[in-house]
């Protein structure tokens, strides 16, 4: 594959691995959090950790939108799907996420609910146009990457004055989550969780630009390197973080220059600002309530907001007591520290946030890494 294989080249990887090994100081540790599930997946899929020296440890952050969607929101989606007039549509890997009682959209579909898997937000709009006699609800999730397409279809639905289309909005915001991780009591109180630097999101940053990360440098003195999703991008970004840490610097650097600028995609940002506003509080699975970390649809577009259109009452749902996802997402624990991992909690029967999508830390470790340490 042209333009992709170049970023997976093993000779270049060896060269970068040697540089990292040469420059990482043996007398200190480098705790680097990759925020994005896309990075977590790439790290495990290509065995990037095998190429890093012992002192460089990757901590897998909460940047998998499917993983962090709270059970209570999924339960609402299931409530919507149960309405006979509703066609609920969403992205593929959301369909098997378990809600309360292990119920999932796939199970609801098998039981007769009209749930459709779509590949882009535009498909949802087309579905509504094809089925004027049904209520088509788009179950929207994702970080700033998938938010502009949702904003666009709401704008288009308004232009078309579509009477049978709405969005169940669960879009979340990256910078708020990073700030929450750094502000959390665990991060301050426990020396066990020093995050030394961040691999910044790739696709999210294409939209929001690199500027929003500058506060982490100023307020927390943590270096951020925005990294592409290919394994060589990840390796190069790790080297850039190691160099900043060695020099005692904390700056926002951009490894992913082929797609990310400081200002980002202004048009997408304007579109998002027109359609969405921040929710005061939103619960993240594994992290709990995070202020100003999610979006809802603005009042002028309320007729396209499923939460306004249908009677939905969010009810608290509880996680499994023994689940360690909250501490795994903060880097305090590893998947193998959890007694549920690979016993009660597997990709087939996920109990916690980190296991529900292949981009979650536990699922990626289960799928790609659990041969390590087996005796």
């Amino acid at each position, binding site marked *: *594959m*042209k333009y*992709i*294989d170049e970023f*997976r*080249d*093993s000779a270049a*990887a*060896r060269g970068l*691995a040697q540089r990292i090994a040469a420059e990482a100081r043996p007398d200190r540790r480098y705790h680097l959090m990759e925020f994005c599930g*896309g990075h977590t*997946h790439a790290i*495990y*899929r*290509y*065995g*990037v*950790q*095998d*190429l890093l020296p012992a002192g460089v440890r990757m901590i897998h952050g909460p940047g998998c*939108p*499917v993983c962090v969607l709270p059970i209570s929101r999924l339960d609402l989606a299931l409530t919507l799907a149960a309405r006979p007039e509703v066609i609920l549509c969403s*992205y*593929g*890997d*959301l*369909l*098997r996420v378990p809600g309360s009682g292990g119920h999932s959209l*796939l199970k609801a579909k098998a039981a007769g609910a009209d749930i459709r*898997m*779509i*590949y882009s937000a535009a*498909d949802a709009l087309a579905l509504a146009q094809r089925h004027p006699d049904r209520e088509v609800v788009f179950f929207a*999730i*994702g*970080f700033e*990457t*998938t938010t502009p397409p949702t904003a666009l279809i709401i704008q288009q639905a308004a232009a078309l004055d579509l009477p049978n289309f709405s969005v169940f909005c669960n879009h979340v915001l990256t910078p708020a989550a990073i700030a929450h991780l750094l502000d959390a009591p665990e991060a301050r109180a426990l020396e066990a969780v020093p995050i030394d630097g961040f691999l910044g999101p790739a*696709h999210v940053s294409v939209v929001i630009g690199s500027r929003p990360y500058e506060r982490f440098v100023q307020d927390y003195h943590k270096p951020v390197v925005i990294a592409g999703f290919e*394994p*060589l991008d990840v390796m190069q970004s790790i080297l850039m973080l190691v160099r900043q840490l060695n020099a005692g610097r904390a700056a926002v650097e951009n490894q992913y220059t082929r797609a990310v600028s400081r200002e980002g995609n202004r048009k997408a940002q304007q579109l998002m600002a027109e359609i969405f506003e921040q929710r005061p509080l939103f619960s993240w699975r594994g992290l709990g309530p995070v202020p100003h970390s999610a979006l809802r649809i603005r009042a002028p577009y309320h007729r396209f907001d499923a939460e306004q259109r249908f009677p939905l009452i969010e009810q608290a749902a509880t996680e499994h007591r023994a689940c360690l996802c909250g501490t795994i997402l903060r880097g305090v624990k590893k998947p193998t520290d959890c007694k549920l991992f690979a016993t009660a909690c*597997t*990709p*087939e029967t996920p109990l916690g946030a980190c296991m529900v*999508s*292949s*981009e979650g830390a536990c*699922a990626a470790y*289960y*799928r*790609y*890494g*659990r*041969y390590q340490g*087996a005796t």
Partner: protein
Amino acid sequence: MSTARVRQVFTSGLDFAHGQVELSHGSGGRAMAQLIEELFAAVFRNPWLDQRNDQACLDLPPGRIAMTTDSYVIAPLFFPGGDIGSLAVHGTVNDLAMAGARPLYLSAGFILEAGLPLADLRRIVDSMAAAAQAAGVAIVTGDTKVVERGKGDGVFINTTGIGVIPAGLQLSGDRARPGDCILVSGTLGDHGVAVMSQRAGLTFETALQSDSAALHELVAALLAVAPGLRCLRDPTRGGLAATLNEIAAQSGVGMHLQEAAIPIRPAVAGACELLGLDPLCVANEGKLVAICAPEDTEAALAALRAHPLGQAAAVIGEVRADPHRFVTMQTVFGGHRLVDWLSGEQLPRIC
């Protein structure tokens, strides 16, 4: 009752241009008899079917008998490189061939949905007959049922196959031993990606075709030169990952692959990249995995490559002693990872 006398009672022939399957085509009455006479019996024609009995009575050559069954429920019914009819022949022939059996006879059970155009059904049946003839197997008995519209997906087909295994041949998934080599007969993921590209809502401008093919002749070529062959399996649903994990579990061994050696077409790799799929978990319908003693691997590889269906064959890894029975892989990047079973359905990742 002779065929000629049955035919006399139909006032007009089936309308293959505009007609459609109706519930009466499965009701046991005249309409069903007409469908059988004018379509299935006419197209699959052979001495066993011509007897018009409720069963085929077969004479089998000496040797152990291999028997297998498979149901085909693919959507769409027609896809680049094949259709449900040819697939229903190839899939079952291949399951026989993986035991080293010479495939001889098939049964064909059809579950038709009312409303299916007769033109489509005829196309499927013609394709099945052509695939069976090319593979040298006879479709000797069958069944037709019709379900109400909305209760099927056009047509479901079940085929059961019978073949004969030459004396002394013992291929089995529990025979892999540490040191054995792992071969594949060609590029992986072609079928699954070709079918997915046809599904509603997905359009790729690829010239990708399903690899659907009968593999028994390729197997015969392999057996002729590689007595050290331990096991053959066709990596259909679940792809290479599932097949190797099955064999590792059966044999109580581990396996280690080299990602760089695994043949995958660029178009398939690109489509998988786009959809967030792992090509090692995507279905194949015309490829085999062979586990072979190291001393015979070179000959086995040469035999595969000499056959039109095995030109892209490759040695992709080796069997290792491992009590955990893990299938691991050195990635193209130089790291290592597990090659695990597919979890649930392969669903596209969101970003």
